[in-house]
């Protein structure tokens, strides 16, 4: 999997992967790979979201 840089990129790819899985047209092997990929993407998204959340909280704290 090529390097994902942004949250939006990861999310778009996640949506696409989930849609592929849901289509039911994958082979078992493909399915396994796709699920693995989707799980990774979810983790990437979570990580990025957490990092964004931290940044935002830090900035908001500076407001007070």
């Amino acid at each position: 999997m090529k390097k994902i840089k942004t949250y939006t990129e990861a999310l778009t790819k996640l949506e696409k992967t989930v849609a592929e899985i849901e289509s039911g047209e994958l082979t078992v092997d493909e399915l396994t790979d796709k699920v693995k990929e989707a799980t990774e993407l979810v983790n990437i998204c979570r990580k990025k979201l957490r990092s964004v959340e931290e940044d935002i909280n830090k900035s908001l704290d500076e407001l007070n």
Partner: protein
Amino acid sequence: MSAHLSLLELNKLIQSTLSGNLEPGYWVIAEISELKVNQNGHCYIELVEKDEQRVIAKTRATIWANVYNNLSLWFERMTNQVLKPGMKILCFGSIQFHELYGLSFNIKDIDANFTLGERERLRQEVINKLMEDGVFDMNKELPVDLALNRIAIISSPAAAGYEDFMNQIEANEYGYKYNIDLFKATMQGSAASESIINALHTIYNSNTDYDAVIIIRGGGSRVDLDCFDDYELAFNACQFPIPIITGIGHERDQSILDLVAYKALKTPTAVAEWVIGKSMDVESTMIDLMHRTGKYVQLILNQKRTDISSLTNRLSNSFKIQLSNNDYQLNRMCSQLKSDVKLFMKQAHNGLDDYGTKVNYLNPINTLKRGYSITSKNGKMLGNEKLNVGDIIETRTLYSLLESKVQKIDDLNEED
């Protein structure tokens, strides 16, 4: 030759007839028309009585030196006047008839009170005439500058009074300067009235804008001030367009010139003090005005300072209110932002969680773990495609991959 008398006999007869019939003395009212004092000190007078201007009686009179010396001094002291032509007197004397010198009235006493009363009567006449002319108060009613600067003086330059006045004015301790012009005039005797009137005319014709005319006299004889009671002089002074101030130096009551003048003072020194006093009044008024102005300016300044400080306070309060408004808005926006962010993050998390759940749910391993298996034919998972007996299929369980041959097919005909 008829009976006759010699002239001497006739005169002696007159003399004896007179002395036999006349009282030793009479009080007589008469006007002096001529008066001479000879080198022996005897005074020779011509007495007249007039009806209007016409002489209706005339007599020679004498005051012998022994009487005249005392009588004239006493009369002067009492009336402040010398015996002179034009004066009406009440005198006591006796008729003497000398065979060589003829009839003469020998004066032994003069009633000074009569002359004073007579003088007062004449003065009153002049005053009444000025009143009738409507000029009496004219000079008094002139407007006078608050302070006098250009001053015309009518005086005799040699008079001690003039010197007193100038000394007083020039030595004033306040340093006031005056522009003073002297107009010379005779200040006593019969020529004084005309001389002063001429001086007034000269002042008028000079076209100089004098603030006042000061008429001063002083020193010298205290007698013979009748010139200042003269009608013509008073008449001119009344109507003079510049205020007249007198310092004639009367000890007795005021002269008519004093009465009609704008201001009458006893002495030249008093006039100088009055002039300086006016300047002082103006200066003190000015100082007072300056102080009042200063105080007023201070008041205004303080008021303005208060205004400015009140404006500053209002401005600062307005700033504070604005700032606090903005602060409030910022805080509100901040809170809004925080809650928005929170919501957004929550939604993002929830979305991700959904994906996570979905991915987990879709993960075939989990299905296999629950005891299900996945069947595929030629690598492709079985959906609704038909299988035939004898087809080779692959079955994936959690831990095994089975290959089977279809031996029997029962259609389940599940509708849903």
